[in-house]
């Protein structure tokens, strides 16, 4: 038996919006610790990891670990039927083939039940090694979203260079090129700060298409954290207050002479 009640139902809607563009079908893993998901996109270029800890729910019960395979588009269709102030409860039986979403209006005058069919999805759980990253950048999530959106109107890829002065985003396209540099700043408002922790400078190139999908998580958190090391995937993390996180991993482009002209 699995049951989880989330007072702030809109949060679940936002979480789903942040992953459904990247992954069509995914397994949710429910355990005593919380509600989690890990999935790769169909090109195996990016990976999304979600965790909603048990203590973030008003009520959480999971008798034994279970996996629920869902089509995220269909799940999103159902969650869109919930009001923004609704309380959302997820329920599933141990051997059942459906998950139930129950929406309660704040005044308790309307209760809706939606049942989503579960599906069998092959997926292997991939362990992501914990690494020390050479560079960590914290910046306002809206700013990061804006940069990715702006640059993708010029080019397809973005080169991110982190130095002790700041982080530089640059792209080249048919019409020209663009560079945006964000310097460290220690604004009073913590959410406006750009903070860089650096072991050594790093420069990596990524496909903007994926980064733009990641920024769908912007409503979940005021700040975003980028972690990079040479030749390793970048980690883009949005912390969900008091609950957990959405983390995206994106493998870098391979740079060589032949493809440099193409990109």
């Amino acid at each position, binding site marked *: 038996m699995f049951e989880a009640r989330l007072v702030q139902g809109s949060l679940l809607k936002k979480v789903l919006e942040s992953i459904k563009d990247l992954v069509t079908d995914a397994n949710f893993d429910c355990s005593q610790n919380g509600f989690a998901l890990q999935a790769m996109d169909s090109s195996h270029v990016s*990976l999304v990891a979600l965790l909603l800890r048990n203590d973030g729910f008003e009520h959480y019960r999971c008798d034994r670990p279970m996996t629920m395979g869902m089509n995220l588009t269909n799940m999103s269709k159902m969650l869109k039927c919930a009001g923004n102030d609704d309380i959302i409860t997820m329920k599933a039986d141990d051997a059942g083939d459906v998950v139930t979403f129950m929406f309660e209006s704040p005044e308790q005058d309307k209760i809706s039940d939606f049942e989503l069919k579960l599906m069998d999805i092959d997926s292997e759980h991939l362990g992501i090694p914990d690494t020390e990253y050479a560079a960590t950048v914290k910046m306002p999530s809206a700013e990061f979203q804006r940069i990715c959106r702006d640059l993708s109107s010029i080019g397809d890829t973005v080169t991110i260079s982190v130095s002790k002065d700041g982080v530089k985003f640059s792209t080249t396209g048919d019409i020209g090129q663009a560079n945006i540099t964000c310097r460290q700043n220690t604004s009073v408002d913590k959410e406006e700060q750009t903070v860089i922790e650096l072991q050594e400078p790093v420069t990596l190139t990524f496909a903007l298409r994926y980064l733009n999908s990641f920024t769908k998580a912007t409503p979940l958190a005021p700040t975003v954290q980028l972690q990079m090391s040479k030749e390793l995937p970048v980690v883009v993390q949005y912390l969900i207050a008091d609950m957990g996180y959405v983390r995206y991993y994106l493998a870098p*482009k*391979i740079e060589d002479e032949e*493809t440099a002209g*193409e990109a």
Partner: protein
Amino acid sequence: MAGGKRAAAAATKKKKSSKKKAKQEANAAGVGDKSVEAAGRLLSYDPAKPVTWKSGEPVPYLFLAEIFESISETTKRLEIAELLTNAFRTILAAGTPEDLLAAVYLASNTIAPQHEGVDLGIGDATLIKMLAEATGRKESAIKSDYTKEGDLGIVAMMSRSTQSMMFAPPKLTIVGVLKEFRAIAKTEGTKSVDQKKGKIKKLLVAARECEAGYVTRSLQGKLRIGLAQQTVTTALAHAVVLHAETKDGKCADGKTHAELADRLGAAVDVLKQVFSECPSFDEIVPALLMDGGIDKLAERCHFRPGVPVKPMLAKPTCGVSEVLQRFSDVEFTCEYKYDGERAQIHLCEDGAVKIFSRNQEDNTPKFPDVIRALPTYLQEGVKSVVIDCEAVAFDRAEGKILPFQILSTRGRKNIDEKDIKVNVALYAFDCLYLNGENLLQKPMMERRKALYSAFKEVPGEFFFATAKVSRDVEELQVFLEDSIKENTEGLIVKTLDATYEPSKRSLNWLKLKKDYMEGCGDSLDLVPIGAFHGRGKRTGVYGAYLLACYDEESEELQSICKIGTGFSDEALESLSNSLKDTVIDAPRGYYKYGESVAPDVWFAASQVWEVKAADLSISPTHMAAHGLVDSTKGIALRFPRFLRVREDKTPETATSAEQVADFYNAQATKQEFNNGGDDDEF
């Protein structure tokens, strides 16, 4: 001129006789020396050696892709057969029956038995898009490579990924690839395009080394490595025998190399025969691996209603006198050759009715009227039957056969019986199965008796093909002329004691068309691969086209002639419009043509046209059947004339290079024959 032709004819004759001699020698020794040597080589192969995977684990697709790669590097048939035979042996040694079945399908460039109608054939645009997404390259870069290389498979192999991955996907397996192919082919309904794309991308993402190339080509429905179906069948038969009867490089029962070669040859004959009667590897491969294997195959897999056999075909001839000469000492019968669609009608034990086309496609949904009326044609007591017949358009008010063109205006799918405007009549001429008995091996005479005993004629709907038994030239000539007055194409002449030989263009059936009265030569079904812009009256449409025949062995389209006559103004207009959408920037790598005939625009092969020509000649510019008649030159058609578009054919079923060579040789023989006649008179 006449002298030249005669010399050519004599040369052909000489070539034939020397070939015959070689064959006789081979027969004397049981089999050819080459096959004995080959048997020795096959024995020395160690099937376990190339195994890179754990025994019992699914065989990796890379193993098969690498075999394809080796096959594409040679043009020698024997070598290709050996490569594939050994690959199958390795799969037998370290894989499961499922692995072998999947490998046979993939090597045959099919994914399911033909009559199930499950085909791939994904468009280039989709593949380019998916390749771009899977590799992270730009679509425009892939397109420009495609223009350069002319083959998407090569582009896929070249497209090194510019994008690293989080985790490499699981390796492709032979069984897994076939499963995905089938799923892709069967995906339909809303969002099917996206689902297909997702599956294609998954395959391309997981492809390593040369795999991407062969996945791409299979998805296009064209393997293009010079691997003919016959070779796959041969390799399968060889592999099964070698696997079962040899050990450690020796025959289990102490056979000599020559005996082994004999055994292998016999196994191929059995498999080919069984496959023609039961064209389904789903049934054949498991049966081959059962106890008794090839020896018991014919008992386990045989013809039955519901699974179509390939239709028996007729050889073209040049006139009544040639027929009489060929059949000088056998009984034969003549039947009208109706101009319609070949239909093999199956009535299964459970009452289900299926109608198959000449390509074993399931045409059942096309003829709801026939399905409904079929019981009224049957005599009492008929529980199951398979007949071969021609479905022709028929005017029931006038009681008259209508031309083929009218039949082709009938819809193809989802036809509601109420909407049918064109009625069809069936002209039955053969019976292959009756009440549980397989009649394929029975002589024509018995099969015809069975047909008459199982059916009754229903005016305007079901007829027996008009037939006549005679040996008199005059009478046959009159019969031929009558047949043409009846709106048929001419006559089919059949020997009475011949069995039904599926898929063979046998000498036991000859066709005698009305065209032969005007001159010699059958019509050809050719593929337009390019066009020339029209001038003068034809400004704005294509004025002339470049046509090609299809070489099954090399999977090439070989140019055979330019054509500009026989087109009505409407035809020019509609052909131009329909072909405009298939224009490609450069010829595909598998188009073979002389530089001097390069057209203004190239087409992706899509249509097949029936074309009539005055005769055939050796050509330095055209490439049809090159290497078959002349070692370097090809064959061209002289004075080609457009007849019609063959809606029922695909470029792969166009007239083959081999048939073109046959036509050329037959023409030479006929000239020789005529010349011989002249000599007698003088």
